[in-house]
């Protein structure tokens, strides 16, 4: 009996079929020791366990990041009110029950950092790329399970450092999640620019390493470890989306790292990459010849692809879930792949639209306007294909499919405002207002979260062998959908009226007094939506232990390979051989059959798709 057999020992009834040496991707990895608690749950090399580690760490971060938004929304909605309980948790950061301006900026900065990087990058693509890539392409594990484990533990280390920055005396970074110099480069600039900023930069550098290790694995697994018959055009769209996400990450995160390295030198080695002619606390600094705009170029060269790193996995999962729950093949499979590719290319060519008002040459701006507006084309193709996929489908309204439909809704309404912001002329009025906040929260934040929720509800049975509670899922969906619109829709009007973002207190600003009631309303909805997310978290953890058990390995009658594994697959995924693939992943309602799994050979009298 080979190493492979012990690999699947938990679920395996028939060791005899285990094939020896099914691929040289797996030699040299230690599988022949007994699984202990440490090797199974902590330093696991099983992609499914690593996915769960990413997911649960991401959930913890999401609760923290969302709670921060509740705190600063209290300030924005009720600037005059005092909340004594705030002082008991935040201490001198909320003296007298009202958060200080420093605390407000720290909360806003950490909210952005946590949700963009730790939840919607690591928590989203870390979870689902790990879980689904080997299962859906038909591989025993990732190309390098060891590197995959390192990817999680680098993320964990980055998390620990970022978390510890919340507890230092001068507080965490507070110059915004973009960490623009000179504010971020000079310790004297604000208390949030002291040790908190250093910890932020170190944590982010380690985060980049984690992300790169993960992405390397995703790409080489997708390209090299597909099972027999799994040609690239037979891949489920989830895999295509994860693939382009990883490509974006591999090519854009290193540029961010180089920007951070230069910033660290400016902070600690007296270099002048970003600093020039600065007066601080009444004295002139020696720094000369630096350019703060240079940082913005390096940052947004990552920063823009980053928003696609966040949204593409959600797009992939939504495509898959909509097809499964409409019992129809995905409409325009190749157009979906093509539009993902187009988005991936354009992602690298539009970064300066974040910098229209930084003194960018207006003629250069015109090119970036054009390229930015071009993104509307692949986005519209995708929206059209999702709508035509569910059009006249036999739709099953599960929480997963509802969240997918919700994704399409928020992606449309958030995407359309992108056309406004992509114009450099309109941007003169709208930049740095609540309009921008409304735009990116709907199109990137809410949409990506909807994709993530859809993925969790849909693949929870594969992760834990149990279902999540459906009723709680429906409550979660409706309150979140309505709440998200109620929170962010009014912000468009605030932004059009010129209300700038990142202000601590608008109450003394007569122009915006008209929004006092609206701000209170938004904050009130925020609290309700936050409470609803806790309901989801309860549902998630309760269902892990007490959820209804699966009785069939394929609960959604889906065609893709992950549902051909046992209900609780061991390390190695398939107890016997890896199944061979004979068709694409979207044979639903074909020739009078509800669905035909990818593993079923094409029969001679079958119609072509």
């Amino acid at each position, binding site marked *: 009996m080979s190493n492979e057999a012990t690999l699947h020992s938990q679920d395996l009834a028939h060791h005899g*079929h285990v*094939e020896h040496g*099914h*691929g*040289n*991707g797996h*030699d*040299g990895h230690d599988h022949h020791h007994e699984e202990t608690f440490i090797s199974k749950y902590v330093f696991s090399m099983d992609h499914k366990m690593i996915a769960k580690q990413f997911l649960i760490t991401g959930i913890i971060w999401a609760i923290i990041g969302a709670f921060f938004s509740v705190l600063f929304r209290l300030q924005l909605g009720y600037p005059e009110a005092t909340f004594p309980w705030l002082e008991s948790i935040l201490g001198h950061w909320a003296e007298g029950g009202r958060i200080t301006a420093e605390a407000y900026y720290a909360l806003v900065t950490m909210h952005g950092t946590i949700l963009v990087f730790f939840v919607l990058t690591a928590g989203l693509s870390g979870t689902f790329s790990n879980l689904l890539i080997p299962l859906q392409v*038909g*591989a025993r594990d990732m*190309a*390098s399970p060891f*590197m995959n484990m390192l990817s999680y533990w680098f993320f964990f280390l980055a998390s620990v450092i970022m978390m510890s920055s919340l507890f230092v005396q001068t507080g965490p970074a507070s110059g915004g999640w973009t960490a623009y110099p000179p504010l971020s480069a000079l310790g004297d600039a604000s208390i949030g620019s002291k040790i908190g900023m250093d910890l932020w930069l170190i944590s982010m550098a380690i985060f980049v390493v984690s992300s*790169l290790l993960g*992405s*390397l*694995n995703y*790409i*080489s*697994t997708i*390209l*090299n*470890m*597909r*099972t*027999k018959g799994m040609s690239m055009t037979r891949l489920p769209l989830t895999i295509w989306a994860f693939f382009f996400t990883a490509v974006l990450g*591999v*090519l*854009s*995160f*290193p*540029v*961010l*790292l*180089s*920007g951070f*390295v*230069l910033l660290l*030198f400016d902070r600690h*080695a*007296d*270099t*002048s*990459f970003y600093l020039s002619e600065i007066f601080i606390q009444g004295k002139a600094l020696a720094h*000369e*010849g*630096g*350019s703060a705009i*240079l940082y913005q*170029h*390096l940052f947004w*060269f990552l920063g823009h692809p980053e928003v696609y790193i966040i949204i593409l996995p959600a797009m992939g999962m939504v495509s898959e879930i909509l097809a499964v729950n409409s019992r129809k093949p995905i409409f325009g499979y190749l157009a979906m792949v093509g539009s993902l590719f187009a988005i991936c290319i354009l992602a690298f060519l539009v970064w300066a639209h974040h910098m229209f008002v930084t003194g960018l040459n207006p003629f250069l701006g015109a090119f970036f306007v054009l390229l930015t507006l071009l993104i509307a084309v692949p986005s519209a193709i995708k929206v059209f294909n999702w709508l035509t996929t569910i059009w006249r489908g036999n739709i099953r309204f599960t929480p997963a499919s509802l969240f997918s439909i919700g994704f399409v809704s928020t992606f449309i309404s958030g995407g359309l405002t992108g056309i406004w912001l992509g114009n450099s002329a309109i941007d003169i009025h709208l930049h740095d207002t609540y309009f921008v906040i409304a735009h990116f929260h709907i199109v990137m934040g809410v949409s990506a979260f909807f994709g993530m929720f859809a993925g969790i509800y849909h693949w929870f049975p594969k992760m834990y062998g149990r279902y999540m509670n459906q009723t709680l899922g429906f409550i979660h969906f409706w309150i979140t959908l309505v709440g998200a619109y109620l929170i962010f829709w009014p912000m468009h009007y605030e932004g059009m009226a010129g209300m700038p973002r990142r202000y601590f207190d608008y109450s003394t600003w007569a122009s915006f007094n008209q929004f006092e009631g609206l701000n209170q309303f938004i904050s009130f909805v925020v609290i309700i939506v936050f409470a609803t997310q806790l309901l989801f978290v309860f549902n998630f953890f309760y269902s892990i232990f007490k959820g209804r058990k699966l009785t069939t390995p394929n609960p959604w009658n889906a065609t893709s390979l992950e549902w051909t594994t046992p209900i609780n697959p061991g390390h190695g995924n398939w107890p016997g*051989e*890896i*199944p*061979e693939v004979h068709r694409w992943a979207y044979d639903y309602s074909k020739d009078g059959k509800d669905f035909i799994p990818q593993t079923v050979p094409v029969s001679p009298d079958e119609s072509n798709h």
Partner: protein
Amino acid sequence: MITMNAQKNKIHPHKYSMWIAMASITMMFIGFTSAYVVKRAQASWLSFELPSIFWVSTGLILLSSVTIYFAQRQFKARNMGSYKQLITITALLGLAFAACQVIGFSDMKNHGLALDSTVSASFIYVIVGAHILHVLGGVVVLLVLFFRAYRTRIRTYSSVPIEVASTYWHFVDGLWIYLLIFFSLAR
């Protein structure tokens, strides 16, 4: 049935991962050098000659690419003795390269071009320093291979690790040549 699911790999996944990692590192240095280009177009840019010892280090790292190429051939021929010698020489050449770069740094400093003096000098320190770290990473990998070669309990017959290491080594070599040409042309 059993022959059905052989996962055929044209190229080993680890080698593939190495190529993607190299693309990633390349992007980092593209980030650095494009920042350099942007800064160079702006005011108060000071131009200066590179330390001449950088040419010595260039020779050393080119030589080390040759030695690791032969190391890989010796491994495949199972001449483990000369394989061990060659990877040791390669690692030492890597260390000598790093030492020369550091000497170059002190040379610059002696000519009034310290890290915090002018931004054109700062770029040299940061970019060349980042490259040194990548070379030292390669040296660590070679050390691991060296100790593996001395292991008696487990013998390695797979040439994948040395092939991946040598690909990386040629890459950091090429990266230095790129940087040298870049710094010489865009002063």
